[in-house]
């Protein structure tokens, strides 16, 4: 009987501990710039998904360079990146944890976690992406991107701000 009582008390204590865990994560109202660049990046990755060269050309600058930690001295040109991306079927993608800093009215730095599922791969790959965008008139163009894969074991923080792509 004492053992049962002890078990009941332990179960109760464990529940109480769960109850007393901190406040929930606040529900954020994203900035106007996050809304803009989330839409632009969805458009960009959808253009890759659909092999829509016209949209890709509109969103990616002529002098665009993509840099990765594995080849820091060998950036991919816009053409090389387009060829690479269009050659690998993008099954689904998701963008989360976006932050945008407007450095000037016409320059913004953007960062986010990209989760993509390619070809017949079973799992998805997460990368941390940093981009530089410039604006001419009302049109924003991506001029530079840095993409760093996130190791599956790495914990980049809570999986927040996941916006479904509609393609998941």
């Amino acid at each position, binding site marked *: *009987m004492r053992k049962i*009582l002890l078990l*009941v008390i332990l179960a109760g204590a464990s529940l109480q501990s769960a109850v007393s865990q901190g406040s*929930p994560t606040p529900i954020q*109202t994203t*900035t*106007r710039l996050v809304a803009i660049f989330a839409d632009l990046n969805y458009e960009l990755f959808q253009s890759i998904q659909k092999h829509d060269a016209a949209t890709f050309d509109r969103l990616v600058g002529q002098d665009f360079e993509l840099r990765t930690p594995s080849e820091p001295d060998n950036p991919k040109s816009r053409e090389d990146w387009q060829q690479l991306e269009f050659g690998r079927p993008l099954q689904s993608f998701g963008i989360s944890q976006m932050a945008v800093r407007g450095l000037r009215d016409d320059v913004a730095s953007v960062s986010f976690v990209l989760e993509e599922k390619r070809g017949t791969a079973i799992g998805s790959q997460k990368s941390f992406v940093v981009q530089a965008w410039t604006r001419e008139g009302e049109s924003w163009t991506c001029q530079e991107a840095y993409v760093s894969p996130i190791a599956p074991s790495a914990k980049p923080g809570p999986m927040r701000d996941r916006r*479904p792509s509609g393609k998941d």
Partner: protein
Amino acid sequence: MRKLLFVGLIVLVGLSLLEAQTTRNARHVVPTGKGWGMEVPHDIAPPIVITGNGINYHGGPVIKGTMKAYFIWYGNWTNGPHASDSQTTVNLLSSLFGSSGLNGSNYYRINTTYGDNSGNVSGNIVLAGSTTDSYSQGTGLSDSRVQAVVSSAITSGRLPKDTNAIYFVLTSSDVRETSGFCTRYCGWHTRATISGSDIKFSFVGNSDRCSSACEAQTVSPNGDSGADGMASVMAHEAEETDTDPDLNAWYDSGGAENADKCAWKFGPTTGTIGSGGYNQTLAGHNWLIQMNWENSRGGGCDKVLGGTFYTR
């Protein structure tokens, strides 16, 4: 001994019920902002009461009756670094939340399309009290320091403890919110247990700190870009608190609450956005306030209850 066991079991059942009330229903994605969500375990299926309007009910309570608003003016709202750190802003936002502002307006009554098993949101909101806080937590606030500001206002008696209310922490433009104000968000809302009660509160910073991120226009209807920028974000947080106060009531499959689904969408305006355009007239002032998601007629963003739905 049997009595002891019985008491133990009662305690366990009580704690289970408490835990069930305070833990969000497990699901794939829960809200964090405009159509964004936080992934959580999905071992418990949420009860979905109403579907078909683009937003679902998840079992938690809504605020019923008139929701009160309390303002905590944090920092320097007399003569801060921006012109909007001023009594003008205090007066404008107080009027917006006064009895002839959002309260019972055709705009705020969009929230009456939301309810829980015991009733619907009233569509009424009134400012019930204000206080000031002169940098008690410094000029760099974490989320927990924002909560401390609210807690201090209540425990000191400067504001009453009210579970049917939203407490706004409104920071002057020299105050940072370190979890991402201006780069990720313009405001947020949440809940916490303060002095043993379920208190709902919100952070909204002076949008003049980052006008390109948190303002739709710098030439604004009331000639006070900070107040006009904050007005839309505060309306957003208020309507989400009314319909999802404990973060377990109304949001869609992507984790977006009602106002998230219409963030930065204003519908048709009088005048153009960028030149002082506005879409609402409340409390004798013109405002540019984002639309809200109406939970009827299939769902959509509109400026007034029963109005035309607009996509931008």
